[in-house]
């Protein structure tokens, strides 16, 4: 096509030349005249190409080829743009996808066309704003089911933990059972992957005939290797249950909080009392389905066509209010409170979404819902991230385009139209955006696929809508980022471009500078927070116990809640088991694992303070309850005092760490000194008396002080078994004893402290690595921003550099000029970021959780300083590269345009 056009126009020229020669011109003159008359061949060809629609497809092909040739020539800057975009798109897609699956899509496995709503009760104390979930009682659920004017169907369920035993396959594993009302699966819209599913309840039929269940897909995989299971029998709490189906792979319950189990079973509600009785539940299970106080049930339903959630909420509220009026009055909480709290009940109907959790508020961004606040924060962060990425990409593309002004000018002067050049530049940035977007989405897809393996994150799945949306964002970013520099570089026509003057340099770069400062400003706090978190994780590492003790100690977890009998009977059974283990060969001691009882704020009593300055300080400590012999078992030497002196009625004896003792009492003897425990309301509680000091070197859980409260007897749910030799050999025999002594308790894995430690180390390492990678990426992103800004400045001020160098500036001075400029931006950013860092550290400090506080003890200023230094070093390198490039500007070349 192209060749034809060329041939045709060439023929035109030849013929005209012949004509002019025939009229008496010389061939040379005739040729020139013919060309003159014809005009600019390439412009005509350009116009002609525009005239035939096919042409532009071909020229886009040419543009794309040219773009790739250009990328090959500038691999570094092209790769940078692609990576920055990929990073941004991956992050954005991940967050957007998370929001989408949590807030906009139904739970996994539930078809999108099922108009499922969640019926939900909630309760709060009158003087507090936070709502708590409130389940429905069975009579209440029945009434909801009868609300035919708003719901076409309603189904409910209640969960219990059960012990599942399949001879030779599952050895008394804990599973979740959901006892469902009739039609649960059809209301939810889930069809079993295998089998027929739960049959409808036949009124008056004996319970034995109804002992059937549907198992979860992971349970099918784990327990049966996906073999034929229909009509096979499993023992649930010792009761035989016939399997009638397997749920589809995606579906593992309707609500997010119930999806964490691999082993889940759905059973008819009618079987609940039989199965609970099998576990010897100490409450009357028959009562559970008639009492208004047994609020056990979650409910979902389908709205009638044309009914809004508001109308349904109004109907449900009436039922809930009536149910509440039939409940027993609330009891007082705690021994000190004079009267019971006034409770406010409410109920509502909300669309069922991926992250719907019973009672804790819909993700409709209600202010007192921490989950929705988290999602809102995530969304903001993602948008900010995308903005930063766009700003960086724009800077990089602009500086590349500025560097190509000469090339563009040559193309313009050779007859390329302005639209043609703009199209070329746009094609380039769009191709870059497409590559970056594709790469980012590949990363996103990989991350999501990996997350899908985690039970709680399983609702979060790759989504084509998200991919399409993110790709649009990527292409949009590419086009927008490409458009400005393309217009910019081609403005003013051939003459101006060829002269290589600066065009609108200052305003653009001021905006650019603002972006860079903002980026550095946010980089530092993010890095400081990350560093503190990493520090916390590192600090939580347990110091290895001496003499290979971790190998010698087994940790046995016993769940007594599913054991039949009264509390006394169960206690006796447990004691029997522990005695048997203790007496078996190879076992030295058996002791309860210390039980965490909470965080305590303590201060040394004024009269017991010594001369040490720190003695007056308040100490926030973790408090664990411990029995005599624990330190001996663990091989932790007691520096002072006896093992455990039982607490008296008036004071509590505690064993503190040697570090804390030194901090508070210096070299003075800490024995017998007293602490005052301070409650949040500042009223003093009981005294704590120091009765011993352990060597802090060996026991360190988290970063707050650890104080052991000494008691003589403790019933926990975990026990430590110290063996005379490496303890793994004892595992089988101890399991056997548990099986015999506690016939219906689930058997948890029995592992040594060394194995626990390895596991913890592994996950800690992964967490550290993840956070370090995050930090690195953030640092990289902001340094690319700095690099882009300085490189842009260098490109735009080429002529100025030329003049300076012509006037005698040395290369070093030019480098210093740009380097100084870049570093100044970095310093401004750091200075502005410092208050944000301090604020976020303060925020972290205040967010004390039961699992431990974030360690902020190492001087924040020190960490801030180190991070600031790191940011400056990276920023310096990012600045130095383009700055040295500035020094290589040839003054002659730069000034030739004059």
């Amino acid at each position, binding site marked *: 096509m192209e060749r034809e056009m060329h041939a045709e126009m060439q023929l*035109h020229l030849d013929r*005209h030349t012949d004509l002019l020669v025939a009229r008496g011109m010389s061939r040379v003159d005739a040729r020139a005249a013919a060309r003159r008359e014809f005009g*600019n061949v390439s412009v*005509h060809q350009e116009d002609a190409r525009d*005239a035939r629609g*096919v042409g532009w497809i071909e020229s886009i092909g040419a543009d794309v080829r040219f773009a790739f040739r250009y990328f090959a020539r500038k691999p570094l800057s092209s790769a940078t743009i692609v990576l920055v975009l990929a990073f941004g798109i991956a992050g954005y897609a991940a967050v957007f996808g998370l929001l989408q699956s949590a807030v906009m899509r139904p739970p996994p496995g539930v078809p999108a066309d099922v108009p499922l709503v969640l019926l939900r009760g909630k309760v709060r104390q009158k003087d507090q704003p936070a709502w708590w979930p409130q389940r429905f009682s069975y009579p209440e659920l029945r009434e909801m089911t009868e609300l035919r004017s708003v719901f076409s169907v309603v189904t409910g369920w209640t969960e219990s933990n059960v012990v599942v035993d399949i001879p030779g396959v599952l050895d008394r594993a804990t599973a979740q059972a959901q006892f469902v009302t009739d039609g649960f699966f059809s209301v939810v819209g889930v069809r079993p992957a295998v089998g027929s599913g739960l049959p409808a309840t036949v009124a008056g039929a004996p319970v034995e005939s109804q002992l059937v269940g549907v198992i979860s897909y992971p349970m099918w995989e784990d327990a049966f290797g996906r073999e034929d299971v229909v009509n096979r029998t499993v023992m649930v709490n010792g009761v035989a249950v016939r399997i009638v189906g397997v749920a589809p792979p995606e579906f593992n319950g309707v609500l997010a909080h119930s999806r964490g189990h691999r082993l889940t079973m759905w059973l008819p509600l009618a079987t609940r009392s039989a199965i609970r009785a099998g576990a010897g539940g100490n409450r009357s299970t028959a009562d559970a389905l008639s009492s208004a106080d047994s609020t056990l049930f979650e409910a979902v339903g389908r709205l009638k066509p044309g009914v809004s959630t508001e109308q349904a909420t109004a109907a449900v509220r009436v039922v809930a209010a009536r149910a509440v009026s039939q409940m027993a009055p609330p009891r007082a909480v705690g021994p000190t409170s004079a009267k019971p709290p006034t409770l406010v009940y409410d109920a509502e109907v909300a669309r069922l979404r991926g992250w719907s959790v019973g009672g804790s508020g819909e993700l409709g961004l209600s202010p007192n819902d921490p989950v929705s606040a988290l999602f809102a924060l995530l969304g903001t962060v993602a948008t900010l991230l995308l903005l930063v990425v766009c700003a960086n990409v724009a800077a990089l593309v602009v500086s590349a385009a500025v560097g190509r002004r000469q090339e563009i000018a040559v193309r313009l002067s050779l007859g390329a139209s302005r639209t043609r050049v703009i199209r070329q530049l746009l094609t380039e940035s769009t191709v870059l955006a497409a590559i970056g977007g594709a790469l980012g989405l590949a990363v996103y897809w990989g991350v999501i696929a990996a997350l899908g393996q985690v039970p709680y994150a399983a609702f979060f799945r790759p989504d084509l809508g998200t991919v399409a949306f993110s790709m649009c964002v990527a292409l949009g970013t590419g086009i927008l980022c490409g458009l400005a520099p393309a217009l910019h570089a081609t403005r003013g026509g051939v003459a101006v471009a060829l002269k290589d003057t600066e065009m609108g340099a200052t305003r653009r770069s001021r905006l650019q500078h603002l972006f860079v400062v903002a980026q550095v400003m946010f980089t530092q706090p993010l890095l400081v927070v990350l560093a503190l978190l990493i520090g916390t994780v590192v600090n939580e590492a347990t110091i290895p116990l001496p003499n290979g003790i971790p190998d010698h100690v087994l940790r046995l977890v016993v769940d007594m809640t599913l054991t039949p009998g009264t509390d006394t009977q169960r206690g006796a059974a447990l004691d029997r088991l522990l005695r048997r283990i203790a007496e078996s060969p190879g076992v030295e001691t058996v002791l309860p694992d210390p039980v965490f009882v909470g965080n305590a704020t303590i201060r040394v009593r004024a009269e017991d303070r010594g001369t040490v300055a720190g003695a007056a300080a308040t100490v926030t400590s973790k408090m664990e309850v411990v029995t005599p012999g624990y330190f001996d078992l663990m091989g932790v030497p007691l520096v002072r005092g006896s093992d455990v002196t039982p607490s008296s009625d008036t004071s509590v004896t505690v064993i503190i760490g040697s570090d804390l003792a030194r901090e508070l009492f210096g070299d003075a003897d800490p024995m017998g000194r007293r602490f005052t425990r301070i409650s949040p309301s500042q009223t003093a509680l009981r005294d704590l008396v120091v009765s011993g000091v352990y060597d802090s070197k060996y026991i360190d859980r988290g970063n707050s002080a650890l104080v052991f409260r000494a008691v003589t007897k403790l019933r926990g749910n975990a026990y430590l078994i110290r063996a005379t030799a490496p303890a793994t050999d004892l595992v089988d025999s101890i399991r056997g004893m548990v099986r015999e002594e506690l016939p219906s308790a689930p058997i948890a894995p029995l592992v040594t402290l060394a194995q626990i430690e390895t596991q913890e180390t592994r996950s800690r390492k992964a967490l550290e690595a993840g956070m370090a990678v995050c930090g690195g990426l953030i640092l990289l992103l902001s340094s690319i921003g700095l690099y882009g800004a300085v490189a842009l400045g260098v490109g735009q001020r080429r002529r100025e550099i030329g003049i300076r160098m012509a006037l005698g500036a040395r290369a070093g001075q030019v480098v210093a000029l740009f380097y100084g400029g870049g570093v100044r931006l970095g310093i401004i950013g750091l200075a502005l970021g410092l208050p944000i860092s301090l604020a976020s550290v303060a925020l972290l400090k205040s967010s004390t959780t039961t699992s431990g506080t974030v360690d902020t003890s190492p001087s924040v200023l020190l960490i801030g300083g180190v991070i600031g230094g790191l940011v400056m070093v990276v920023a310096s390198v990012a600045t130095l590269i383009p700055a040295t490039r500035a020094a290589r500007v040839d003054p002659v070349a730069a000034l030739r345009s004059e």
Partner: protein
Amino acid sequence: VSHAKSPLLPGTLELIVLQLLQAEPTNGYDLSLRIQTISKDVLSVNAGSLYPALYRLEERGLIKGEWSNTSAGRHAKVYSVTKAGHKQLIDQRDAWRRFSGALAAILKAT
């Protein structure tokens, strides 16, 4: 670079090209010469307008071009009017007649 001795009324180039090609299929260069000759040197069509116009008409399926050897022994692309082009020509000719008649009436009346 315009050498037109008289400006071409917008939209008339298509009509001229169709009319001339209807009379006799020919190549681009001869077509430009013919426009000049028949209009007695009043109209001169620049190559920069002629070729895009030809491609546009070809694109719309009103004319079609075929490579063949001319009498002078050159290999040239010869354009001819298609059926659709013929219909278009009749329409445009009518429209032009109406327009020029109206214009003439106005010029005469005032």
